[in-house]
């Protein structure tokens, strides 16, 4: 086990990690510039998880939030365990072969979203008492006022917000992997994770985008029901 983990950390991995952290932060800021309603702040983490294994991904996530918190926005600091699990889970999903075609990537994104929701709930509840400095806390606050417990309110909110974000993140990471040359990918510890399966790529991509759009509509519908009801 420990030897396997060690094998995942070759020189390419150690060099990729800082670049991936910078990618996380830079894409996060581009998204802010474009005023899109997602975070997309873990594309690099997922990328490392897929190419270099779960533990490298987990390390990238944890360091990414720490450095983000220290250097740019202090609010990111307490959430490092969430990023840790995002990297870990995307790595394990890729190891299980769930990062080889568009529809599988959507599933990976969804599993990562569930993990992120589960990991962020205890932090939001115990550190912040349920209400954090993020905008989605308005939903949590409303749910709590309707009599829902803190845990349920926080988890429902993340469950509404996370899937769209994490599936888009996984799809973006997959698009990046597909744009890289095979020779380059072969230098990383786990090139077999992203071996091409072939098949109808174009159609699958459209279906994947369709799923994301449906999820956005679902979240919007639920929000109207919750806030308008």
């Amino acid at each position, binding site marked *: 086990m420990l030897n396997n983990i060690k094998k995942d950390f070759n020189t390419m991995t150690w060099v990729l990690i800082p670049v991936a952290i910078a990618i996380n932060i830079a894409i996060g800021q581009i998204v802010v510039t474009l005023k899109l309603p997602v975070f997309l702040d873990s594309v690099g983490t997922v990328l490392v998880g897929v190419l270099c294994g779960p533990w490298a991904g987990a390390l990238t996530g944890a360091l990414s939030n720490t450095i983000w918190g220290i250097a740019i926005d202090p609010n990111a600091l307490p959430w490092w365990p969430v990023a840790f699990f995002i990297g870990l889970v995307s790595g394990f999903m890729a190891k299980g072969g769930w990062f080889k075609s568009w529809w599988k990537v959507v599933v990976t994104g969804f599993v990562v979203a569930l993990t992120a929701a589960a990991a962020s709930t205890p932090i939001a509840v115990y550190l912040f008492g349920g209400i954090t400095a993020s905008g989605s806390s308005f939903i949590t606050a409303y749910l709590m006022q309707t009599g829902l417990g803190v845990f349920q309110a926080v988890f429902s909110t993340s469950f509404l917000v996370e899937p769209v974000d994490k599936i888009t993140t996984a799809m973006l990471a997959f698009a990046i992997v597909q*744009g890289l040359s095979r020779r380059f990918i072969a230098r990383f510890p786990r090139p077999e994770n992203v071996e091409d399966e072939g098949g109808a790529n174009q159609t699958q991509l459209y279906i994947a985008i369709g799923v994301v759009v449906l999820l956005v509509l679902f979240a919007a519908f639920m929000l109207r029901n919750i806030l308008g009801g």
Partner: protein
Amino acid sequence: MAMHERLSFYAKRDSILHRLNPLTKLTLVFGFVLISFFAPFYWTPHLLILSGVIPLSFTGKVAREYFNASLRLILPAAGFLFIMQALFQPLEGEELFRIGFLHPTKESVMFAFANAMRIFLMVSSFTLFLLTTHPSELMSDLTRRGLPGQFAYVIISTIQILPQMQAKAQTIISAQRSRGLDTQSSFLKRAGSLIPLVGPLVFGSLVEVEERAIAIEARGFTSTKTKTSLHEIPDTNSDKMIRWILAALVLISLALRLWLS
């Protein structure tokens, strides 16, 4: 906009705080944070800020930078957290006023105040640490104490790459805009312009990965031999004493919490 800010907070001065061993300062930060969470008294975080962090910022001769960073970065975040929690935390107690479904109680305001102060303490003591410690000094001290060199590489290299990456992102945004890329109109157009912005940025930076790997490999990156350091970082007896006292204080506050609750 945070994009053009320099990344290293470090302010070069000559003070007692600057001369302390980096690990001692790190212990100080974690000590403050842990005590503020463990100690069972309501006013602990407030007192630690007033009698700990702020006087230390004067000792370190970085008070101006410290207040600047606190006002600009930390206070808005802590303030927002305070308002959100004071309004939305459904705690039972004496009701202060009522707007719509919002009815903040005295308890929820007190709770929000303590929580916001805890976050403020956490971030501002870290800021003080970064103001008085050069990142590479911290890393070489921690490497000497047994932190794997690879970790030090990741941290230092991220700190170097990040500003370059942010500058690159700005350049790409301007370049694509001048070619007519839409970054301001409808939602779908903005979502569509994500790819032409992210693509060049990511592929451009991944190209450098291989070259960098070869370069550090040639400098003995994976060698397991102990490496010598050109720059010695002092670790005095008073450093050690401060660290033990802080550890003891953390344990005492933890014991008090367990004992009183």
